């Protein structure tokens, strides 16, 4: 299957698409629930996870050029180790897809389409996602570019409206109850930043380490903007109200008294946000199908797209709908996922480094290592043995 390359700008857009929808929708309220007054600090802490994941992915791209994360894992950890890591990675992708589907359809139902059943929203999202996934990575990135541009265009007047309501005093005191609340909230914000791990399955399309500049720049911009938006939200609603409402940015807009025409900005922002969500869901469908395809050793992963999409949709439909239960699922799942998002690429990088060292050592000592990854001779020992 021929891989279509995407431009550096599109790579950065994919990063935006992965982080923003969840960020705008869920993160501020959950972070505020955990970190209370220090929500905005906890959010800034979470951004480090994104930087770590992007750097690890770039390291993987550099050590195993032209391979995705699972293929690289198979190279670094051996066939069985790669499959095991791939399975864990697939679990993380399925969790990301399921929570995105659930949160997006529930938000549409609670906010705009209150009579439309949840399953109808789910059908809409899944159909759009499958359609987008069949088009491929490059069209999704291109469509995402348009929607991100629209989202930014919608956010600028919205933020301008909110500035008058912003009270910086609501951001203080910091660490009034020690650093523990902020540390409790940080994993929640680390989870959406860590979602960039999905790009690990698109590494061949990204074109290796040459994409590092735009990716890191995109991540830093996203980090600053999302951090700024959460701080603005907290400065308008206060941490308690922030923790009560899922789409807190929209809630902040509803506090502003504006002429009726401008009231529609919030609807525009929410609609554009949904379009970005469509792009994200399509991207996640591609990623999880690729991961499953890699694990099963399939040449073409596309037949798996509708299958896995239906699986995640059915699962998303059948979890308890109470927000308390769901937020716990998201909290603990988010913590485990955030840890795995960083740990799994780190293990791959370590495996690849170990492998490279082994290969270098073997080349010096004249041996060729077996593909099982078993160690034959330490490079140090080999060097010592050399006359």
């Amino acid at each position: 299957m021929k891989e279509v390359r995407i431009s550096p700008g599109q790579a950065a857009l994919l990063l935006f698409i992965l982080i923003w929808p969840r960020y705008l929708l869920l993160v501020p309220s959950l972070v505020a629930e955990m970190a209370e007054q220090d929500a905005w600090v906890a959010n800034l802490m979470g951004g480090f996870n994104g930087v770590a994941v992007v750097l690890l992915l770039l390291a993987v791209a550099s050590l195993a050029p032209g391979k995705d994360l699972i293929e690289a894992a198979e190279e670094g950890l051996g066939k069985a180790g790669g499959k095991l890591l791939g399975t864990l990675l697939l679990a993380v992708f399925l969790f990301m897809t399921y929570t995105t589907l659930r949160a997006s359809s529930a938000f549409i139902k609670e906010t705009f389409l209150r009579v439309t059943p949840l399953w109808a929203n789910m059908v809409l999202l899944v159909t759009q996602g499958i359609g987008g996934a069949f088009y491929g990575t490059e069209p999704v990135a291109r469509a995402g570019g348009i929607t991100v541009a629209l989202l930014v265009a919608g956010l600028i007047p919205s933020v301008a409206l909110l500035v008058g309501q912003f009270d910086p005093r609501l951001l203080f005191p910091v660490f009034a109850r020690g650093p523990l609340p902020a540390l409790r909230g940080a994993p929640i914000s680390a989870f959406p930043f860590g979602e960039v791990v999905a790009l690990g399955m698109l590494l061949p399309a990204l074109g290796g380490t040459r994409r590092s500049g735009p990716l890191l720049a995109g991540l830093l911009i996203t980090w600053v903007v999302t951090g700024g938006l959460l701080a603005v939200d907290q400065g308008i609603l206060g941490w308690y109200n922030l923790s009560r409402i899922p789409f807190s940015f929209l809630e902040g807009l509803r506090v502003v008294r504006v002429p009726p025409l401008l009231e529609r900005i919030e609807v525009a922002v929410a609609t554009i946000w949904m379009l970005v969500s469509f792009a994200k869901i399509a991207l996640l469908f591609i990623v999880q199908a690729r991961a499953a395809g890699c694990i099963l050793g399939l040449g073409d992963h596309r037949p798996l797209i509708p299958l896995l999409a239906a699986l995640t949709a059915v699962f998303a439909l059948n979890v308890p709908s109470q927000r308390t239960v769901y937020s716990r699922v998201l909290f603990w799942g988010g913590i485990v996922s955030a840890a795995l998002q960083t740990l799994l690429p780190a293990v791959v990088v370590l495996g690849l480094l170990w492998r490279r060292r082994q290969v270098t050592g073997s080349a010096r000592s004249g041996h060729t290592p077996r593909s099982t990854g078993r160690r034959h001779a330490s490079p140090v020992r080999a060097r010592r043995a050399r006359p």
Partner: protein
Amino acid sequence: MSLPRGKLVPLACLALVCMVLSGCWDAEDPERTAHVVAMGVDRGNTRALRVTFQIMVPRMLAGGAAAGAAGGGGGGEGGADAPRVWVRAVETDAVSEGFHLLCEYLPRTPALSHLQAVVMSEQVARDRGVASLWDFLTRDAQARRAAQLIVTPGRAEELLRFQPRLADIPGAGLVALLELAADTGATIATPAGRFGLALHAEGMQPVAAMVEIVPPEAQALPGGQSGSPDRAGGQAGGRTTAAPGTVPPTPEVRAAGLAVFRGDRMVGALPQNESLAVSLTLRRARRPLIRATAPDSGAPITARVLSYRPEIKLMTEGGQLRGQTRLRVAAELREELTPTYFIEPARLKQLERALATALTQDLASALRRTQEMGADVFGFGWWLYRKRPQQWFAVREHWDKIYGRLPVDVQVEVKLRAEGLTSKSPLFPGTPGGDR
């Protein structure tokens, strides 16, 4: 990694069809929607609450009144005097239930997307609090948090049935009146979102605007003006009576100070002058007028505030907390009958001192009254929480009592930066018209 064009087209069509799927359930035709402009909550007769809804009559707003008048209606349902809104009250135990009961009386689906004001009677605010109303407003997806929260000493239903002059939609007129009054400091406009912010803030208690219906016989505002400028009623002893050949006085709506809450319950009220002091301390007034009496002549002095800078803080003296509130005001002189030809610098200082003293008295009075209520609306506790959180957590549980006994120093500084277009008095002795 792309599909052939032949397969993509049906897929794209399917995706587009799915986008209109929601229309099967959530179609909302404007002609089948009833927009609630204002809500009111009173104590009920048969059940706990009586919830009143003011609903727009779209036909009348879209030129139906004018058409009715041209067609010879006048006073009928389609006439020029026909009401632009329809008011309906229901008895219920919960605000949300009241909204659903409204469906029994309406041929349209009620919607809260245009809600502008929520009025609560003082009785309900004191006895039941605003928690249920606040919960309903924050849970509802349509209601905007920009809707103004208003407390009225009388019945909320009466206020919603009242047709103010110069306003097509009473609810919108009420909000416009409130916002203008808030600019002058007569009250503080409190959108539901801002009320909720104060409700959940550490060390701060919320306030809400008070609006009342003033009967014709009591329409005398401070300063001796008649209740309504468009009415030519004479004024005698604070009572307005109609002059021959003029429109007889009718009840009017006016901003009536502030309702003070402790938690979600109303615990007291502040009059207009004290409301101005609170409004200035909380940075909520835009262009208020401050008043005083000239120390020598006893003539009124008024000045319009151009800018102001409030500051509150707490100090620890001998292990005890002591509050300090400081207000620096720059103002423009609006009326002053000086006995000198020009306003001299010394005289200007005298006027500044008089204005500062009047404002200090109002501020001290507002402080004393809120301390009696145990409601820290100024946010001394919030200051402590932000600046010394550990100290705040130690006193947090008893803050209402501590605030009640808190000694507070009040400092007000007024600077008259401008004198208007003239600096000369019209009554200077020796000038034409000045020897009176």
